[in-house]
Each structure stands twice: as C-alpha cells, then as structure tokens.
C-alpha cells in the first residue's frame, strides 16, 4: 500500500494522490489517503484518486498539534502497514513526517521533487541538494519508505480509480502537552503561488522606484510580482514576494525574471515554471541557462518597452 497523509482536502493532496496513483500502478499497490481532520468536507473531490480514504475525524485535529496527530497516525500506519508514506512538504508534513519516521525508526527524505519506483519496489526519491545545485536520488533501506514532497511539483491528473472506499477509523484522545491559546488567520499581501504570470525582480532593476513599471505590467496581465532575496532584504518588497529556497516555490505559466542574475537559491523556486523569460544586462548570467527567452539588456528599459507594446495591443 502507498499511503498519503493529509489534514485537509486541497490542491496539494490531490497533486500527491495523482502522483501516488501513477506510482502505484507500476507495482499494483493500493493507494490510500489518511485524512485526519475535524470535519468531513470536500470528500467527493477525492473520488477516483485513491482506493481507500481512511478518515479520522476528531476535534483534536482542528489545528495541527504534534501529540494527537502523531499517536493516531502511528496507530493507523501500524494497522495498515503501507510500503510507502508520502505527505506534502508543508508545515504540516514537515512536522508530522519526521516525528512519525522517528517513531517507526525508518528513513525519511525531505522535499522531493521527483518520485519513481524501481522493479524491486524501492521508492526513488529525488530532491535538490546543496542549494539546488545538484539533484540527489535517495533510497530507503528500512520500511516504510517515507518522503515529503514539494507542493506544486506534480500535476493533477484526472481521477483513475473506479471505486474509492471510505473507511472510518476511530481516533483515540491524546492528552496534548501543547495547548492552543491563540489563533489569528494570516492575511498575505501577495498570493503569488496562484498567479499565471509572475514578474519577478532582482537588484538589476537598480532602484526601488523602477518597481512602478513592474506593478503596471503585472496589473495589465493579471500577474503577481515576485522578488529575489536581495530585493526583499533591501526592503523594496515584503517577504511575501520572495521566491526561492528560503521563500516561495512557484510554477506559473509565464515567469519573467527581470534583473535577476539567477543564484541557485532563486532558481530552486522558479525553474519549473512553464515558460521562463529572462532579462539581464549580463549575457553570462546563470538565469539564461534556465530561460526559454533571454533578452540581454537593461531590465527596466525592456519592461517599459513591453508595457508600451502591450498598451498598444490593448488599445488596438
């Protein structure tokens, strides 16, 4: 069995299940989703994406806390004995999975971007290593084999399973050593993960005032504005805009890197975008290596030209 663990039905979960179905086909594994949440909702979205949906419903799962999640997840895993366990590399997966791995005395690979299964049933877990400079493929000698997977890496496939069985498992109540005493929803300035077009800027834009043209362009094409770490550190834009290893990982249809030289840390956050356009004065800038279209020129003036031409299109 290949098990995916999640605490909600969202895009990440469906992505992961899509990939899980693909992998499971090769070894005739069953795919199961362990869903630990406080409410049962959006369940119909899961139909066809797993053979089994194991539901654990409890008030204790309303906000993630390790104690109740760990005890119950371990219980389910010991009962169903999956060969492989996957979860998203989110604050949820990145907290629960290491804890579960320690309990099960097994290996865990963080932040995978590629998964495969060999003929012996080994999960080939590939992740960027050394700041994204190399891709390392890792296998686990113990069982179960565990991995967290970066969101937005795998695509959502149409559902393939004829039947999806919903199984209820009774959670046990755990005395939590952590007590939730406050909760405030986060309001983000920029939702760049969802944009189809991202215009990202680096220090090559030269000055903060030049962001003006970037905002205008973004508005024209319904896009979002991204940034390198240097730009965020210089306070041109807030941290919500940062793309890269220590910021966000994005995969838009069009990514425009303006005045970004392309440090590996930044590339790690955008290189899977569909079409990458790079504008940089330095023709040897590493960003051109991952770009589809490269313009060797001053970023600001090129953005202005694009904006003007688009303005003409709009009026035409």
């Amino acid at each position, binding site marked *: 069995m290949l098990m995916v663990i999640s605490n909600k039905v969202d895009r990440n979960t469906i992505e992961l299940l899509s990939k899980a179905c693909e992998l499971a086909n090769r070894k005739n594994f069953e795919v199961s989703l362990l869903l630990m949440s406080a409410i049962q909702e959006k369940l119909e979205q899961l139909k066809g994406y797993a053979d089994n949906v194991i539901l654990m419903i409890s008030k204790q799962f309303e906000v993630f806390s390790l104690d109740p999640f760990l005890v119950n997840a371990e219980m389910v895993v010991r009962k169903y004995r999956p060969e492989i366990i996957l979860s998203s590399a989110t604050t949820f997966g990145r907290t629960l999975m290491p804890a579960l791995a320690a309990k099960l005395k097994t290996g865990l690979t963080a932040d995978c971007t590629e998964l495969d299964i060999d003929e012996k049933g080994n999960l080939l877990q590939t992740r960027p290593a050394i700041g994204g400079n190399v891709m390392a493929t890792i296998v686990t000698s113990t069982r179960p084999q565990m991995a967290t997977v970066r969101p937005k890496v795998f695509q959502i496939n149409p559902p393939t399973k004829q039947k999806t069985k919903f199984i209820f498992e009774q959670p046990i109540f755990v005395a939590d050593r952590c007590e939730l005493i406050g909760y405030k929803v986060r309001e983000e300035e920029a939702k760049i993960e969802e944009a189809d077009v991202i215009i990202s800027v680096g*220090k090559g834009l*030269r*000055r*903060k005032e030049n962001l003006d043209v970037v905002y205008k362009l973004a508005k024209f094409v319904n896009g979002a504005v991204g940034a390198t770490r240097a730009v965020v*550190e*210089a*306070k041109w834009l807030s941290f919500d805009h940062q793309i890269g290893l220590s910021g966000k990982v994005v995969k838009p249809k069009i990514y425009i890197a303006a005045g970004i030289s392309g440090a590996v840390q930044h590339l790690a956050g955008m290189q899977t975008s569909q079409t990458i356009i790079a504008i940089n*004065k*330095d023709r*040897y800038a590493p960003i051109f290596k991952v770009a589809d279209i490269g313009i060797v020129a*001053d970023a600001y*003036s090129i953005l*202005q030209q694009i904006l003007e031409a688009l303005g003409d299109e709009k009026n035409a």
Partner: protein
Amino acid sequence: MREFIEKLQQIVGVENVKTDPDELERYSKDETSEIEHQTPLCVVFPTTAEEVSQIMKLANLYKVPVTPRGAGTGLSGGAVPIKGGIVLSLEKMNRIVEIDRENMVAVVEPGVITDEIQKLAEEYGLFYAGDPASSESSSIGGNVAENAGGVKVMKYGPTSHHILGLEVVLPTGEIVNFGGKVLKNVMGYDMVRLFVGSEGTLGIVTKIIVRLIPKPKYFATLLVPFDNVERAVLSVPKILSESGILPTSIELMDKQSALMASTFLSENIPHQDAECHLIIEVDGTDKDGLARTYINLGEKLQQMGALEVYIADNRYQRLKIWKFRKAIAEGIIAFRPRHCMEDVSVPIKEIPKLIMKTYEIAEENKLEVLNFGHVGDGNVHVTFLKPEQMSEQLWKENLEKALVDLYQTTAKLGGTITGEHGIGIKRKKYLSIFMSKNELDLMKKLKRIFDPNNVLNPGKVFD
C-alpha cells in the same frame, strides 16, 4: 541635425540610436540629486572602439557635444548632458575580454559592471582591489572616468592604483593605447594616470587593463560604537600611527546616519543610541594572525573609550555589519530626496575638526546634517538634508551658504573638494576655492589640446 542622426545610424545601426522621449529622459540623469540637464538629441550605443572613433569624428564635423556614459550611477553629474548633443552610452561594450591569470590582469570593456570582474577574478583566486561601494551597479568605465574610491582605499588605493593600461578614443577620434600588462612603466608621461579621473573630458576609454592581486583569505570586521564623535574620530589617526596595523577600511557613521540606515532596514544596529559607530575591517592570510590583529586593535579602541567592540569574523556576521553602512545612502535617497551629499576629503588628522565644524555649519544654516564615510582615508560624505518645514527657496539659499563654508573649511584644513565622486557639474563653480588661477589654466590648456572643438563632455570640471 536629421542628417547628423542619419549618419550616426549608419555608424552603429538604426536600433542603436534611441530617440524616444522616455529613453532620452532616462539618459539625461545620473544619481546626483538636484541637477539641471538638457534633453539630448539621441542616445547612441556603439559596440566597438572603431564605432566610437567614427562617432567622435562626426561630432567634430558637426560640432555636436558628446556626453559619454557608463552605468549612470555617478554622483557629480559627470554623465549628464548639459549642452544637449548626444549621449554616448558604453553599456553595450560590456565584454570581459580575458582574465590573464599568470600576469594577474583582466582586460575588460568599459561597460562591464565592476562586480562582474570581481566575481570572475574570484574564480581564479584573484581579487580586483579597486571596487567601489557601488560595484554592484557601476561600470568599470565609469570607475575609471571618476577614479572611484570606496571602502578599501586606505589599504589598496583608489581605481587609479589598479589600472595598468587603456585604449582610448580621443575627442578628435583617434584611437590610442597607453600602458599595458606591465607594473612598471616610465615610458614618457604617465598618460594612463592622466585619463583616469578625467571625468570623460579628455577621451573615451574603450578597453581597460586592470590589475588583479591574490585574494585575501580572512577578514574581520569590527563594529565600534562611541558616545562621542570627536573621541571616535580622534582614535583613527592614533590607530593608524601607533598600532602597526593597516586596516582595509575605517568607516564612520554618525548617529543620524545610523538612524537612517536602521530605519531603511527596519532593524536596530547594536548601540543604536551611540553618538557614532566606526566600522573597521582588517584582512589577512592566516586566521590566528588575524585574531591577534583584531584583539590588538580592539584593545586600543577600548582604551580610547569605545562603548563596545563587536567582532565579526565570518561572512554572515560581517554582512550584518556592512549592510548598515550600505543602507545609509539608500536610506537618504528613499526618505530624504531633498539632500546634498558631499565628498570632501582632508588629511586624516584633520577629520575631527572637519566633522565638528559640519555640525556648526548645519546649525548656523538651520539645516540637518549627517556624516558618514571613509574616515580612514580622510573622505567624509557630509550630507545636508532639507528640514521638512523649510521652504524650497530658503533651502537653496542656506545650502549654498553651508556648502561654501564647508569648502572653505576643507581648503583651510588642506583638503580637497572631492575624494571620489568628481567635480562634474556639481562642484565646478567651487573649484577656485581650492585651486589657483595658474593651476586651473593649465588644466584648461590641456583640455584644449585634446579637444580643440570642445565637443567631448563640455561644461564638466570647468567651463
């Protein structure tokens, strides 16, 4: 004029002559605040020395002024067209021709961003010691034109110390070469030194041979707050003459500068309330030796009344210190656009007098002032700020009075009006405070010999 532009287009190609108004506006400014300019006819982007040569010949024929320009980060208006004509941008001549490891030199075109040379040199374990604070955005050609300084001048010297040879297109269009990949050269006049810092008035540099040195391995940066500016600054000549240590940098930021930087970064500097901070950097080739050096230095500073001595000896911690220093100028530009950043330089012993005097000058003229800069080499960026309430008219008048007073004080202390930014147009009318008629006349004669029709960057340095 249409004919002139058509001929320009024949030389560099139609797409390398820009005339649209936005572009012209952009190429008629640099980073100097409050500078008047004229919109140029067009901007040309030559890609070879031969094209530059033809452009200059054409300009002489039509008597059209040519303003050469690198990355446009200058702080004296040197690349600003003030007599119309054309702007000649060297942006597209941006190749690093070679890094010659054995000879420890790099051959580069003027449009290369200085940091690019640094990055490539580092791959070979080498180091370009001339890079100024603006190296991320300024071009090497601009550095040469202005003889840029920076934070490492006290140990390594300004740009001129690192330029071994130049290919230059003279104002009349001839292509000449001086110097080469040699460290010693007394063949005739030192023409390389003459061109470096000539602010684009004597020729257009089209190829540059820069010296590279072995990269120092270890660095330590000291952040040293003081509760008294005078005491801090007095410690500088004392350290230099008594410790037997030559730091690469001794930088000063006074309380107002630190506030500017920390506001810009939204982060406090340790001892935010200190009257000033010194940043001192030392480099070396062995770690233990470097530790002995900074302990020696740190103890001296403690004796001189430092409130604390912070020591950063890894990259991460050093960046933490330097980012404050770098954020001062950015903060000024962001929060106080109405300002005047000066560049006076005095013998190091006189720094305390200079700095104390700036506070007096500011008070007398009801201006705000902040002081930061390279006190280790005597170069202070005295910056006058317009108080929020002050009228534009009064700001202009009082600033003028303050500047004259500042320059007279500087001259009296044996200093110069500009250490690393250049005269350009910003300071030319004050040059007579520092120079005699004979001295000025000699420079003017020189200019006439090089540029009989006065087409290359006219109106810069002097009229």
